[in-house]
């Protein structure tokens, strides 16, 4: 017997909502009205930064804001050309760190989540419980010792050191989610794979991972955002050289004591938000199923 993972429909990608009878006009207006207002509130800040990003700094702080006022793409040119700090190096650093974190965190939490979902082994309960407790550690208590350890390991000031630190934040939560997700994949599949002569790792790699794509997508999204937006560790652990900063640290140069260059900051913010929004758009259809099974069974 051969097993074709893609033919096994385990996951209902997007279940139909409850069937409803036709609702009254008033209810319809209320429903759409509420959703529209909520969407507006969700989107407006992003929209407002987008508008501001085209204005010169002086126009961004007018007391009667207009949608367009001397708008141009000058801010973007200034930011990208390096007039306002090494934006492109920061960007490169952030991309590298976020991608490394994503790959490592997804891989680690997938193997751990799978082991926790499929095997009973001594120490499993304490392990899962310790993952929950790890979420509670405030960085304040870890930051000095971590600094020392990275120094000892020769990773202080290195991007890889930061990646490892981010993994400790992302992996426990991701493991919980993926364990829940793996729980929803029937055990029969593992057994069939074993019959075909696959090793446990082969089953995991060739059968389970492809089936768990929605769960993996959510995990990747979460890990990426953890690394992409983190401020405290990045400020503490990267060297002071301008080129080694991440975006979260570097962008603070725009928020000076006396004067904030809002136009330039807005342009930089839009450039930073784009990769995150792209990643988000790619995974958004998996978000509901992926997160749900994790949270339900977690």
């Amino acid at each position, binding site marked *: 017997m051969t097993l074709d993972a893609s033919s096994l429909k385990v996951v209902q990608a997007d*279940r139909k*909502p*409850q069937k*409803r009878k036709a609702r009254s006009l008033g209810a319809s207006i209320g*429903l759409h009205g509420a*959703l529209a207002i*909520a*969407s507006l509130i*969700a989107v407006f*800040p*992003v929209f*407002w*930064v987008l508008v501001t990003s085209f204005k010169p700094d002086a126009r*961004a702080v*007018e007391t009667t*804001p207009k949608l367009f006022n001397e708008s141009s793409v000058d801010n973007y040119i200034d930011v990208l050309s390096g007039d306002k700090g090494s934006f492109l190096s920061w960007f490169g650093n952030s991309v590298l760190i976020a991608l490394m974190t994503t790959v490592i965190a997804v891989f680690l939490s997938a*193997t*751990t989540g*799978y*082991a926790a979902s499929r*095997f009973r*082994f001594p120490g499993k309960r304490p392990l899962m419980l310790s993952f929950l*407790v790890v979420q*509670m*550690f405030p960085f*304040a*208590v*870890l*930051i*000095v*010792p*971590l600094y*020392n*350890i990275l120094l000892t390991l020769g990773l202080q000031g290195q991007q890889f050191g930061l990646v490892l*630190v981010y993994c*400790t934040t992302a992996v426990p*939560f991701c493991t919980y989610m993926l364990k829940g997700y793996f729980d929803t994949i029937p055990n029969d599949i593992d057994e069939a794979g074993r019959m075909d002569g696959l090793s446990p*790792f082969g089953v995991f790699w060739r059968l389970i991972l492809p089936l768990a794509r929605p769960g993996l997508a959510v995990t990747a999204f979460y890990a990426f*955002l953890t690394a992409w*937006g983190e*401020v405290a560790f990045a400020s503490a652990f990267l060297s002071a050289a301008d080129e080694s900063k991440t*975006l*979260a640290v570097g*962008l603070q140069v725009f*928020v000076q004591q006396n004067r*904030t260059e809002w136009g330039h*900051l807005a342009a930089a*913010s839009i450039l*930073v*938000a784009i990769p995150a*929004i792209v990643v*988000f*758009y790619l995974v*958004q259809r998996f*978000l*509901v199923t992926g*997160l*749900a099974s994790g*949270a*339900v069974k977690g």
Partner: protein
Amino acid sequence: MRKFLDRYWYAYAMVLPVVVVIAVLVLYPLAQGVFFTFTDINEANIANPVLDRAATYVGVGLRNYLNVLSGDSSYGSFWSTLVRTLIWTFSCVFFHYTIGLGLALLLNREVRGRAVYRVLLILPWAVPAFISAFTWKYMFNAQYGIINQGLRAIGFDDPPVWLGQNDWALVAVIVVNVWLGVPFMMVALLGGLQAIPGDLYEAAEVDGATPWQRFRHITLPGLQSVSSTVVLLGIIWTFNMFAIIYLITGPNPNTRILVTYAFERFFSGASRDYAIASTYGVLILSVLLVFASVYRRALRKQGEVW
């Protein structure tokens, strides 16, 4: 032993990397951090390999804890900061949950443009937190911020100075954090709603249950396991949320929570006070551990296995 390894090898091999990373980068630093709380360690007396200087800090017993727990204002007014942290945490999580649940219920209906609404509503989650912080700081500005412009336009002649040294600053950061956290709750609860079997609702409708009764007796119990997980996580995350407050208001005593004070103590000030920062860290962890075990016990009483 042989047999033991034969049986569990795959499981241990798969778990091992995570255990190693967590042990090295979390448990060991935690132990060291706890040790620091009994010393007077700071920037000036820590070992510094770069300058080739040995550590000269000394043990001080429980002095750090006594100083912090006395609530003295030169040590961050622990008790009033704790109260503010609790206000911040519970108001944020309350609004996250209620708004998230409301939107999830709306999105779970058959409604035209569902996919579009969903994408738009999740957007705040996709924007990195420090970008959101800058954005809202801009919008909350007292003179040129769009929020006060809007308030003036609809007749409030004297809108508040949001991010100044007053309690409006706390309101402002709570608003931002609510905006930021609702999508996660909404998505998790939407997933939970979709896992409730539809025939339950049909049966209830046949029996003549009102919409409120259906919500009360089918939806809420059906969501219980999702809810208990996300609420606990939400409380832990919010309690330790640092970036939003720190980037929006800086070291403002009116928005100070335990974590931001620990960071202040760690980073700013002439002599980076690692000992007090670590003491705060340990106290935060203790509060959360106590809370989590009480929470867990309460859930267990309701028959929830967790």
